[in-house]
């Protein structure tokens, strides 16, 4: 049996209140996109070694998948489904009511379908480093400006902090969780040492 090469993309909102789910799958014959052949969808994420499932009576209906759609997420090729954290549960435990905590995520979309000759479900997992709060914290780093005694070393280290955060994001995208955690631990130590407090995860 062949496999439909499902491909998703995840983009976290700047203030971590949601993420956009994009469907980058090239739906082409013999599996051209046909909403009637999509039977159900399951969205899960792993955060801090706990698996959370998106609770919905009918995720297909919630995503609005119908005859006008060109992919799983909408009627335009760059359409997105906005996912909020309050829908994710591990049993009775909600991930969070308002924001996605910073950290390493494995987000998986599973699609049951009736395309003949293809395995069901079609599955794709996206590895993501959600760091919205850390980015905002890093943007608040103070640098005292004294033109007669400019602190070049501190200036370099503050630029370094931003570069480290970007590297952590890429580490997650490559599935390198260990490196992601090493880099973000160092960044948090750096921010703590400069008394930059958490913004929404206090």
């Amino acid at each position: 049996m062949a496999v439909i090469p499902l491909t998703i993309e995840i983009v976290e909102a700047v203030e971590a209140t949601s993420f956009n789910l994009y469907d980058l799958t090239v739906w082409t014959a013999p599996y051209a996109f046909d909403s009637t052949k999509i039977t159900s969808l399951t969205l899960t994420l792993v955060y801090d070694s706990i698996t959370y499932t998106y609770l919905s009576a009918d995720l297909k209906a919630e995503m609005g998948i119908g005859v006008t759609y060109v992919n799983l997420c909408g009627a335009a090729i760059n359409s997105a489904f906005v996912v909020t954290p309050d829908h994710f549960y591990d049993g009775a435990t909600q991930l969070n009511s308002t924001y996605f905590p910073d950290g390493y995520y494995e987000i998986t979309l599973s699609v049951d379908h009736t395309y003949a000759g293809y395995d069901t479900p079609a599955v794709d997992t996206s590895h993501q480093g959600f760091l919205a709060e850390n980015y905002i914290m890093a943007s608040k780093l103070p640098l005292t400006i004294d033109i007669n005694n400019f602190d070049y070393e501190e200036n370099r280290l503050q630029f370094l902090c931003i570069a480290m955060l970007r590297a952590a994001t890429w580490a997650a995208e490559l599935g390198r969780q260990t490196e992601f955690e090493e880099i973000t631990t160092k960044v948090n130590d750096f921010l703590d040492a400069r008394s930059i407090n958490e913004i929404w995860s206090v």
Partner: protein
Amino acid sequence: MKSGLFNITLDMIWTATLKYDLLNNCKTLTVILATSIARKLDLGQPIDGYLDDLYFMCNVTFALEEASVVLVDADFDYLNSVYNKIRNIHNRYKGLIIPAHHDAH
């Protein structure tokens, strides 16, 4: 001329697959440089070689990630040569071993 983790050849037609491989190569090297810095007990330790190259690789990776549609083959040749230069410096003189690429997205 062969170079890079995926035997990317200079002066060649940059296919979508090769561009994707180069982007992942650059992300990998950036992560290794950042991890090397993170393992230092004190950021005040000498990190110049790592810091400057991390900045450089961040810019290269940004360019590939955000602006690849406006880049031409000669631009990819240049960015690939930058990647190889920094990678080789760290492999030869700083003891970093660039591991096999972990394919995920």
